[in-house]
């Protein structure tokens, strides 16, 4: 890919990696990273569940990304940005959004007795707000996995790399996250009837 090629040249030229004032490098960063700002912000909102914290984390993430742009090897930039954001969130807000991550992976039953709902019930489109709330209510690692998959649209291997876990763990987290969502979903359906 062209960006990667130019990028390597740039790196060879400035052995002092991380020169945030290099205008050429800054321009490449701007073109590569800024179009994804809304997505990075979205992930931060779900990880931290707080607009002000998300704001701070995203700003910090972009500053770090600019500083370490030389470590970006080309290819898909979104997983790279998300990984930086995730570290930012963990480091700065260890006591907050990620505090509930210790929840045992098997604390939630994977499967509950299927409840036959009327077709129209399940199919009826939930209001965006209630879906957001259901996703936000998930425990940390499950919330992170489902957001990266359903909202950011990453593949299993990209999620595995960002979260630093095997693909099998991504699969089981996703299965549990969806099971929990379904339980919340069906509960809302029931109340609505």
């Amino acid at each position, binding site marked *: 890919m062209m960006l990667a090629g130019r990028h390597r040249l740039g790196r060879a030229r400035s052995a002092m990696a991380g020169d945030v004032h290099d205008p050429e490098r800054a321009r490449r960063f701007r073109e590569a990273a800024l179009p994804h700002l*809304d997505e990075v912000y979205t992930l931060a909102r779900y990880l931290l569940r707080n607009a002000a914290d998300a704001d701070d984390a995203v700003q910090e993430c972009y500053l770090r990304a600019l500083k370490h742009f030389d470590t970006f090897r080309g290819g898909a930039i979104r997983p790279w940005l998300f990984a930086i954001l995730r570290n930012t969130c963990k480091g700065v807000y260890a006591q907050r959004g990620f505090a509930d991550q210790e929840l045992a992976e098997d604390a939630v039953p994977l499967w509950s007795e299927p409840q036959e709902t009327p077709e129209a019930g399940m199919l009826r489109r939930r209001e965006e707000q209630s879906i957001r709330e259901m996703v936000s209510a998930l425990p940390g690692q499950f919330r992170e996995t489902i957001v990266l998959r359903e909202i950011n649209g990453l593949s*299993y291997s990209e999620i595995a790399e960002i979260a630093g876990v095997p693909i099998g763990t991504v699969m089981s987290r996703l299965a549990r996250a969806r099971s929990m969502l379904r339980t919340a979903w069906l509960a809302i359906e029931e109340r609505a009837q």
Partner: protein
Amino acid sequence: MTCDEADVLLHALIDGELDAARARDVEAHVAGCQRCATELRQFREMRHAMTGASLRFVAPAALRSRIEAAIPVPAARASQPSRRFLLQGFAFGTALSAAAAAGVVLFVVRSGEDERLLGDAVSAHLRSLQAEQHLADVRSADQQVVRPWFSGKVAVAPPVIDLAAQGFTLVGGRLDTIDGKPVAAIVYRRGVHVINLFVGASANAGHTAALGEAVQGFNTQRWSDQGFRFIAISDMGADELRDFHIQFETGLRAGA
């Protein structure tokens, strides 16, 4: 396959992450298991609703400004993606193609005109992604709303096709400029991926086969049909974008 295995694997099936053999195993299990069939149906419906809902947030303008302010701007240049940079990219791409040709690899020559069109398409696509409000001037998932919006704004109103059933949600449309001429940009979304479909008049009324090409990290498909010239561009996979082209063409021919 046991139900326990299927509990996990049917998610990978929904997400298209299984190879063909494994997918067949899961499907065979589901076909013979009422419980897992119900699971699969419910999760698919839930996923469908999640994909259709807007679960994303838009970064506040103040945050965007703070970040932009933190990135140094070359004094002599505007902050927009520069045309020159993009064209340099194409020159580089062409040099690579020439090298490939020398190696007796079958390839398609990109004409000077195509380079210009694709360069403009990349610029316009990037611009449309810079901020949510740049994406569409008319926002509607209804083709009957989007199509008439273009009348009087471009020479010929473009075909707008409802592809919701094929998994591509119509977001809306806007006016854009390609090769110095106003063109219709029809915006679709699949999951997080935005597709810009640029539609202009073509001198050629017939159909030309689609050419798929990666440009500047984006996938593109370009073709002509029924007097229109189409360029589709997106950050989605090449296969997915080809599928978009096929679905759009099928819809166009069906007169949808």
